[in-house]
């Protein structure tokens, strides 16, 4: 039984590195905002974390192709807007499925 149960905890090695507070929360927010994107300061405010914690996580997500950053003029000033990519959407959906499987005790694959 333990062997069977353990299978539901399996997650792709690359996706395992997404299971960090900032990374998963950023993906979730950007997924919700879709093509609208989010400003850097809004992500920072929503997560209540410092630049030192936010920037490395944003860079990790960007370097792995899950999000992209674009410079835009917002209220006359230059601002960075972050968007989720198709790969980010796929990863987020896989994480969601994985979490749902974990939470659903009836689903033992």
């Amino acid at each position: 039984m333990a062997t069977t149960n353990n299978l539901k905890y399996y997650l792709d090695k690359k996706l395992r590195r997404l299971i960090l507070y900032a990374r998963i929360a950023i993906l979730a927010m950007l997924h919700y905002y879709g093509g609208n994107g989010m400003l850097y300061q809004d992500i920072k405010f929503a997560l209540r974390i410092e630049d030192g914690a936010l920037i490395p996580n944003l860079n990790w997500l960007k370097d792995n192709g899950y999000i992209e950053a674009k410079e835009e003029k917002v209220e006359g000033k230059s601002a960075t807007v972050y968007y989720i990519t198709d790969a980010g959407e796929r990863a987020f959906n896989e994480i969601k499925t994985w979490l749902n499987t974990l939470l659903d005790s009836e689903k033992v694959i």
Partner: protein
Amino acid sequence: MKEQTEKLIAYLNLLGIRISNNSFESRMKAQKLAYIIQSLLGEHLYSFNFYVRGPYSPDLARDYFEHASEFASGKSSYKPSSDEREKLEHAKAFLSNMSLSEFEIVAGLLYLMREKGLNEDDAELRLHELKPQLKLEDIWKGTNTIKKLFLTSELRDKIMSELKDELDAWDAASNISLKGFE
């Protein structure tokens, strides 16, 4: 296009506002404007949640990506009623030159009052709690803008008529007292 989309574009036309889905600022303005417009007209076009930047509708976002050219050109077959025209003409003076942060404040306050049932003071405090980076004086200005937006000629006539009734009552009372000195 869905009727709600046709309507929103027609209303934005009356305000002289076009939405470009290529600009973050324009998309966010569309979100806040749509919420303000449907509050002003008392019409439900989209469902909104309160998100990081105030009222936000994923359905509306889908619409302006799907119908980008219509939002950018203002193409709509919906003809607003005279009542809708009057209300939006009145609102145009306030809405056409507002900045993104002013839109966020006005839409945020309206959401807290309408959807959460908060009174003016509580909505101001709650918005400041949710968005502490906003200055309180800017939030107060937002409340004043809401008052001006909703002060239609009909409402103004009603207030003036009530004031007149009150003043007439005071005049009558004062005339009675003056008679006592004659």
